[in-house]
């Protein structure tokens, strides 16, 4: 980070380096500090000496791997269903659109455990849909890895939908008109013009979605249970560790954090870059 450096240079005309006004730099720095300081607190308290042995515990890597897998699958599911939903909300006028838009935020406001209960009520073995699924296809979702994906997707989807809708509303619809005059139907326009234009927004939404899914706990443990190797993701492992051993919980959290930050930082800029 060279933000302070940047601030110092702002005073005199500098070559090329854009000057950053203090009125922006100050709150930005404060915001960053606010987000990162707690992490520093955790790092300071982490029992570094025991780290290798904790990492070596077999359950940890399994949980980490499961977390990454399920969060990625959940993000895929969210993108598949959420981007069209965001498009519908941004581009099609229909009665009750405002209500639908507000309803999309439901899983955000719902305490995740209640969300898990709600999922059980619908997809559980005795749920509205779950009983039918079970009877017809012999499929039960709760307490399976698929259930974890479902719970994470439920909790994380609003992030994608709302971020993508915001991006769509900021995009110029006249490019879509131009595509139409060239013979592109709405679907082709969507895939060939709209999506590439809002790619940064979709990327931002997917990052939010993935990170939220990775950290999901309440809905997962309620809907999918806490079975090591099958439904025990890192946050669940952290929860159990909290029961007995705060430092262990901190270490597990840090492992999860490090991996996710590394993955996100490793994603090439152009994934998030403007076209």
């Amino acid at each position, binding site marked *: 980070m060279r933000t302070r450096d940047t601030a110092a240079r702002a005073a005199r005309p500098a070559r090329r380096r854009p000057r950053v006004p203090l009125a922006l730099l100050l709150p930005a720095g404060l915001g960053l500090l606010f987000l990162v300081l707690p992490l520093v607190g955790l790092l300071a308290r982490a029992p570094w000496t025991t780290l290798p042995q904790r990492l070596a515990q077999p359950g940890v890597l399994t949980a980490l791997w499961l977390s990454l897998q399920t969060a990625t699958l959940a993000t895929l599911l969210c993108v598949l269903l959420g981007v069209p939903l965001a498009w519908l909300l941004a581009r099609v006028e229909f009665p009750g659109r405002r209500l639908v838009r507000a309803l999309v935020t439901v899983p955000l406001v719902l305490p995740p455990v209640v969300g898990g209960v709600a999922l059980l009520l619908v997809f559980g073995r005795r749920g509205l849909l779950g009983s039918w699924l079970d009877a017809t296809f012999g499929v039960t979702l709760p307490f399976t890895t698929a259930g974890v994906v479902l719970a994470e997707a439920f909790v994380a989807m609003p992030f994608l939908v709302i971020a993508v809708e915001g991006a769509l509303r900021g995009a110029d619809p006249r*490019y879509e008109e131009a595509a139409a*005059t060239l013979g592109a139907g709405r679907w082709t326009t969507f895939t060939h013009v709209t999506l590439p234009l809002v790619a940064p927004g979709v990327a931002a939404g997917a990052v939010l979605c993935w990170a939220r899914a990775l950290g999901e706990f309440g809905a997962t443990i309620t809907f999918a249970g806490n079975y090591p190797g099958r439904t025990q993701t890192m946050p669940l492992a952290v929860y159990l560790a909290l029961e007995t051993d705060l430092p262990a919980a901190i270490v597990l959290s840090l492992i999860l954090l490090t991996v996710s930050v590394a993955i996100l930082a490793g994603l090439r800029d152009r994934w998030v870059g403007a076209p």
Partner: protein
Amino acid sequence: MTAPPLLDAHLVADRDAFQLDVRLRIAAGEVVALLGPNGAGKTTALRALAGLHPLAAGHLTLDGVDLDRPDRRRWVPPERRPVGVVFQDYLLFPHLRALDNVAFGPRRQGADRSAARERARGWLDRVGLAEQARRRPRQLSGGQAQRVALARALAVDPTLLLLDEPLAALDAGTRLDTRAELQRHLGGHSGATLLVTHDPLDAFVLADRLLIVEHGRVVQEGDAASVTARPRTDYVARLVGLNLHRGRADGHTVRVGELTLTAADRVVGDAFVAFPPAAVALHPARPDGSPRNVWPATVTGVQRHGDNLRVQLDGPITVAADVTPAAAAHLRLAPGQRVWAAVKAAETHAYPA
């Protein structure tokens, strides 16, 4: 028109306070130039034709197919209309290279990727941008971008071609080349073309017929010769470079305000009189001799105009006069100066209003 029109439209559309109401017929192979002052509704008309702005009333029929008929609740969306549009601000897809922008249309028409690109490459070549094929729109200069937009619209070979000032950003030389290319293309084009332009030369060169709109209404229509000879509004008069006045005619004389002008033509009733600025001669004192139309005037402005000077005159009628720099020096023309203006009757044309 003898052939049944390929395009038959009565465009009625609203845009907040602005109302468009234009009747339009274009035969197969015909090129119509749509002219009019800024804000006259030219772009709005094009948008209505393309299906981007639904009609409030009227109708729009292309090649026998109703594309928009509010009374029958019939409306064909843009993507199913056989149109091609050059937008006034291009609207090139920012994420696609020039080549893929042009290939976009052919792809939608079912060409496979390489065929579409081949076709796009041909068009880029024709507008002189073969080298820029791999650039993205933001990496193009204004005139380059406009030519890509033109290529993109032509590449779909539409039945109805809508061009919104397609040459405005081109440099003089490229403009001639591109206009020639366009002329060649339109010569072989079997569809209908509507060309919006502010350049009378473009209109005269490319179009078979002119349509002048003002305030959303058609004010004059006809081929270049008739429009140029007999402008019916101030806009058209300025476009073709004539002084235009409206008055009441009685034989060879037309009464305009307090002034009576003698014209070459015979008209009775409401009439226009028109004469070119170059036909107006200025004199320091009342001239004797042949000019029948003579009146005192005050100079309100002098501007360079090509090799000559254009002099704005106030008086019983407001006119522009073109004089040579030598004449101007001789007359010591300056704003406020009083002179006599004279126009020969032979150069003064009158026609019914």
